[in-house]
C-alpha cells in the first residue's frame, strides 16, 4: 500500500486554517488584517516538517514554523519525552544565541507539549499534533546553493578562457592535456599555472577566488561566534548556513557575479546542544569539513579559509583547531568489531 505522502494535520493553533477556510468578515474594526494564508510546507525531514508562515501578522514577521510531529511508532510516554526535550533544546539554543548576538533566526514562539489531539482529515485517525516552534524567517540562499552557483559561474567564465589562444598554446605545450572546459581546468585550488600568460582571466579569477575565500572566512567566524556563545550546532553543513543579503545591495557592481556579500546566518538547531568542550567544538568543525568536502569537492581546497576565519573569531579557537587535528586522525571509526 503505497500512497502519496501527506504530512500529518497541523497542531493548534495552526489547525484552524483548515477548519475555517470561509469566514465572516470581521466586525467593525479600525484596523483589519486580511486573513493570512495558511502555512506553506517547505520540507519534510525525518524529525520535523518546516513551513513558511508569519508571526503576529502577515507582513511584519515572516516566520518559519517547525513542527515535530509525534511519532506513532514510539511508546507515547517516550514520544512525549523526546519531542518535548528536543523542541526545547532547539528553542533554548536559539534564544540564548539571540541574546549573545549570534546571527541565528530569533525564537518567536514555542509549544513543547504537543499533546493536543488532531484528526487526520484523510484517514480519520487521531494522533498528537506535535510540538512546534515559530522562528524568524531568514531571507537569502543557503550557502550550498551560493557555492554551487559560484562554481558554475567559474566554470562558465574560465572555461571560455581555456579556449583563448594562450590557453590553447599551453595545452599544446604539453600541459595537463585536458580538453577545454574540463574539470581539471576548473580546479580552484590555484595550482593552475596561469601567471605565465598574464592574461586578464588570471587576474579576474584571482579576484573571484578572493571573494569566495572571504565568504569562507566569514563562515568560520560565524561558527566561532556560535562556539564562543557555548553552543554546538551538531549538524553543520552548507545547507544549514544562509547568506542573508546585505539590506543595501550595491546595484550594478559585478555584472553576472554571484552575490557573496551578506551576513552568514546559522540555521536548523535541531541537533544543537550546549557545550564549551574543545572536543565537541572540534567535532562540530569536523562535521562541517566533511560535509563541505563531499558537497563542494571543487572548492574543498579553500576550506582552510573557514578555519582561518574561525581561528580569528574568539579566544580558545586555537586549542579547538589543535583538537580538530586529533579528531581528523581518529576519523570516523576506521574499522569495526564483528
Amino acid at each position: 500500500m503505497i500512497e502519496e505522502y501527506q504530512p500529518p494535520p497541523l497542531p493548534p493553533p495552526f489547525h484552524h486554517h483548515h477548519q475555517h477556510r470561509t469566514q465572516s468578515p470581521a466586525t467593525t474594526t479600525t484596523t483589519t488584517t486580511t486573513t493570512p494564508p495558511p502555512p506553506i510546507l517547505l520540507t519534510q525531514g525525518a524529525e520535523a516538517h518546516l513551513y513558511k508562515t508569519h508571526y503576529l501578522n502577515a507582513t511584519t514577521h515572516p516566520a518559519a514554523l517547525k513542527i515535530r510531529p509525534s511519532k506513532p511508532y514510539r511508546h507515547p510516554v517516550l514520544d512525549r519525552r523526546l519531542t518535548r526535550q528536543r523542541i526545547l533544546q532547539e528553542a533554548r539554543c536559539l534564544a540564548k544565541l539571540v541574546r549573545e548576538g549570534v546571527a541565528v533566526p530569533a525564537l518567536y514562539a514555542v509549544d513543547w507539549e504537543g499533546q493536543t489531539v488532531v484528526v487526520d482529515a484523510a484517514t480519520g485517525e487521531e494522533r498528537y499534533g506535535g510540538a512546534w516552534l515559530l522562528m524568524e524567517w531568514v531571507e537569502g540562499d543557503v550557502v550550498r546553493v551560493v557555492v554551487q552557483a559560484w562554481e558554475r559561474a567559474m566554470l562558465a567564465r574560465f572555461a571560455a578562457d581555456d579556449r583563448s589562444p594562450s590557453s590553447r598554446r599551453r595545452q599544446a605545450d604539453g600541459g595537463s592535456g585536458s580538453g577545454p572546459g574540463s574539470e581539471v581546468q576548473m580546479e580552484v585550488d590555484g595550482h593552475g599555472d596561469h601567471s605565465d600568460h598574464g592574461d586578464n582571466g588570471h587576474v579576474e579569477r584571482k579576484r573571484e577566488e578572493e571573494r569566495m575565500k572571504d565568504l569562507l572566512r566569514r563562515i568560520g567566524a560565524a561558527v566561532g561566534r556560535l562556539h564562543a556563545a557555548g553552543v554546538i550546532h551538531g549538524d553543520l553543513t552548507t545547507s544549514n548556513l544562509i547568506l542573508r543579503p546585505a539590506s543595501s545591495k550595491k546595484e550594478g557592481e559585478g555584472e553576472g557575479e554571484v552575490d557573496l556579500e551578506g551576513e552568514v546566518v546559522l540555521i536548523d538547531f535541531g541537533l544543537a546542544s550546549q557545550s564549551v568542550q574543545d572536543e565537541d567544538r572540534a567535532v562540530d568543525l569536523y562535521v562541517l569539513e566533511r560535509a563541505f568536502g563531499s558537497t563542494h569537492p571543487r572548492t574543498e581546497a579553500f576550506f582552510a579559509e573557514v578555519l582561518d576565519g574561525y581561528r580569528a573569531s574568539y579566544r580558545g579557537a586555537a586549542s579547538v583547531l589543535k583538537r580538530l587535528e586529533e579528531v581528523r586522525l581518529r576519523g570516523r571509526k576506521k574499522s569495526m568489531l564483528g
Partner: protein
Amino acid sequence: MIAVGIEGSANKVGVGIIFHPEDGSTPQVLANVRHTYVTPPGEGFLPKDTARHHRAWVVKLVKQALQDARVSVKDVDCICYTKGPGMGAPLQSCAIAARMLSLLWGKELVGVNHCVGHIEMGRAITGATNPVVLYVSGGNTQVIAYSSQRYRIFGETLDIAVGNCLDRFARTLHISNDPAPGYNIEQLAKKGKRLVDLPYTVKGMDISMSGVLAAIDALAVQYGLNGEWDEKDDSADSAQGEADDGKPTRADLCFSLQETVYSMLVEITERAMAHVGSKEVLIVGGVGCNERLQEMMGIMARDRGGTVHATDERYCIDNGIMIAQAGLMAYKTGFRTPLKDATCTQRFRTDEVLVKWRD
C-alpha cells in the same frame, strides 16, 4: 550456477547452497542448515568454545546440505565463506573448513563480508531493490544505503551492538539462551506494561547503547530482579499488573529496553531514508526477527508512504545461504579469493567491499 556458503562468525554455524538459474531468474535456495551453540542462562559464548562447536558441526552440516540440495560436488561452482567481521576463532574454524573443501573438491573460494551477505540475502528474499538497510545483530548495528558500488554506512552504533545489549541484559536476568536470548526477552516484554526512563542516545545517524545497558542493569539490581530466579515467578510478572507498588517487573524492564532501543533504531533509519530519499526499508540481522521492531518500523514507513521488508528467522539469523548468495554474485563478476589470501578478519567494514554486481 551453484555455490556453497559457510558461515560461522558468531555462535551459529550454517551451510547453504544456492542456485542461480542461467536465465537470470530468481535464485533458488537448495539447502540452508544451521546449528547454534547455546550456553546456559547467565553465560555468553566464548570464542574458544564456539570455535570448538563449529569444528564439531561443520562437516555434518556440509553433508546435510548437499543431501538436502540433491546436488553432487561436481555441480558446485564455488565455495563461499565468511571472511569477516566476527569473532576470530569461530571465523577461523569455518575458513579452514572452506579451504579444506576447496582443495578437496578443486573449487575456487570466495571470501564474503558477513554484512554484505545479510544485505544481499535480504534483497533476494524480499525483492526490495534499493532499500535503506538496517542491519542489527549481536555484533553489528548499522544503517546502510547503496551508492556508487558501495554499501555505505550512514549511521552505526558508537559502542556496543543492539543484539549484544539485549544478550547481556538477558544474562543479567538469567533469561534462557535457548533458542536465543533476544527471542526470550521479546516474549517476556509482551507482558510488560510500564515504561521506565532509560537513556536515549541518538547523535545524528549514530546511536549509543552502552548507557541504556548500564541503566537497565542498574535498575535490575536496584529492584532485586537480577540473577537466578524461579520459573514460578514468571506468572507474577504478568499478574502483578495494576496492584503495583511502583516497582517494575522483569517484564517491564524487558519491555522498556525494547521500546527504547528499537525507537533509537527506527529513528536513525528514518533519518537515513529522509537523507537519501528512499521509501523502502530492509531489516536484516538476528535482531531483525523481532516482531516489535518490525511493527515499529512498519508504522514509521507507513507514515512516510513507504514499506518495510523483513525476513524470517531462516534468513535474518546468521546462515550459510546468505554467504552463498553474496559470494555467488561476486563470483559471477569474476571475483575470486586465492587460497593464500583465504584468511579471515575480525574487522571488515561493510563499505570496504566493491559491490561490482550492482550499477
